[in-house]
């Protein structure tokens, strides 16, 4: 979707503001936000792609004025309600008001080290050969899906070169919507900066994206 999250090339956000001696967390609530987000992810009720799409669906004004932990929490509330773990009334009351869905797994403290060390690999056994080869010129498709995609707007309908075949990965555009993992080949595609940003842009710049095969067409 062409949501507020798709920020590449937007202007007006001002300079990047690095923080001196930045703390890990700006307030205790951020610690709890991290913990609760990861603990709920461990339910196994939704995929990382569905959670990314929930974040993208936050209304633009709210998204752009929120810190990232706030974005996480807003999206987490949506996911927990969608999957019937909690209700709006419970969130408003700040208390449980009755039973809800049962997760496949509840993350206990003792499980944390192994769960974090294992992570959630998104590659899958390859099926078939990649359509594109290293060095080949390709064009990204001009897709404006209402759903989830990982092809950013600035890189659509642009011509680049396949730099690497990175593996066979779960396809987020389907997986975010419960249509299955449908894994595909992923490629690193590199673009000349001028192909994306036009005349007058930095002549020393190249930009790459990692693109699923169905984002690409031969030139």
């Amino acid at each position, binding site marked *: 979707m062409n949501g507020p*999250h*798709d920020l*590449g*090339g*937007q*202007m007006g*956000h001002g*300079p*990047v*503001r690095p*923080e001196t001696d*930045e703390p*890990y967390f700006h*307030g205790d*609530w951020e610690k709890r*936000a*991290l*913990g*609760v987000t990861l603990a*709920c992810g461990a339910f196994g009720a939704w995929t990382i792609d569905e959670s990314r799409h929930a*974040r*993208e669906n936050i209304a633009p004004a709210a998204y*752009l004025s929120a810190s*990232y932990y706030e974005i996480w*929490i807003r999206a*987490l509330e949506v996911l927990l309600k969608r999957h019937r*773990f*909690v209700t709006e009334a419970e*969130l408003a*009351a*700040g208390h*449980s008001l009755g*039973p809800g869905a049962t997760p496949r797994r*509840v*993350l*206990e*403290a003792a499980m*944390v080290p192994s769960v*974090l*060390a294992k*992570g*959630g690999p*998104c*590659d899958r056994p390859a099926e078939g050969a990649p359509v594109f080869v290293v060095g080949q010129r390709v064009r990204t498709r001009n897709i404006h899906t209402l759903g989830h995609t*990982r092809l950013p707007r*600035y*890189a659509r309908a642009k011509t680049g070169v396949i730099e690497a075949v*990175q593996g066979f*990965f779960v396809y987020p555009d389907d997986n975010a919507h419960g249509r299955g993992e449908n894994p595909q080949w*992923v490629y*690193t595609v590199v673009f000349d900066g001028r192909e*994306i*940003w036009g005349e007058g*842009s930095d002549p020393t*710049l*190249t*930009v*790459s*994206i*990692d693109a699923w095969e169905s984002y690409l067409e031969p030139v």
Partner: protein
Amino acid sequence: MHSDHDHHDHDHDHDNHYSDMQARVLALETVLTEKGLIDPLALDAIVETYETKIGPRNGARVVAKAWADGAFSEWLAIDATSAIASLGYTGRQGEHMRAVFNTNETHNLVVCTLCSCYPWSVLGLPPVWYKAPAYRAKAVMDPRGVLSDFGVALPQDKKVRVWDSTAELRYLVVPQRPEGTEGWSEERLAELVTRDSMIGTGLARSAGEVAA
């Protein structure tokens, strides 16, 4: 750390004592805990992991080893996930690693324009600026402007390569090894490796910047 969340009288959600987000997260944690869906001690363990165990010192050790050990550097270039795992760094948001090496010709910069993808296993939690709109918007279009926001100026003829982390690959920049560090131990070399130098928004410290 974890305070008296479980015991706090929470009939006053909008008590001025709490900011909106404090109240919102407290309500969420309380509901989930009451329902047996989360273990508050697991939340403590997650926070403690990222405060004390998983952070940019991991990545600095990877870079220092790459500088000191040519065979490791080659392995890192070919199969970063395995090379990094050999040092004990695996897992969440580091499942599929790639290392990109700065050279005299090319400077690398990593961003995630679409969300906040970041190599947690080697760098820990991303800084606020990495996740904020300004960086995500500007990095792909004007990386030299971003570098200037960090006080870094590259030679005008140096190529700049920006890696937008749009899939599940996570990128670690291997900065150039500073001059005058021949014969240094990996431990000492690691002192030169800043978090920002492994994102590409900085360079490694010079030899003179760390105590002998």
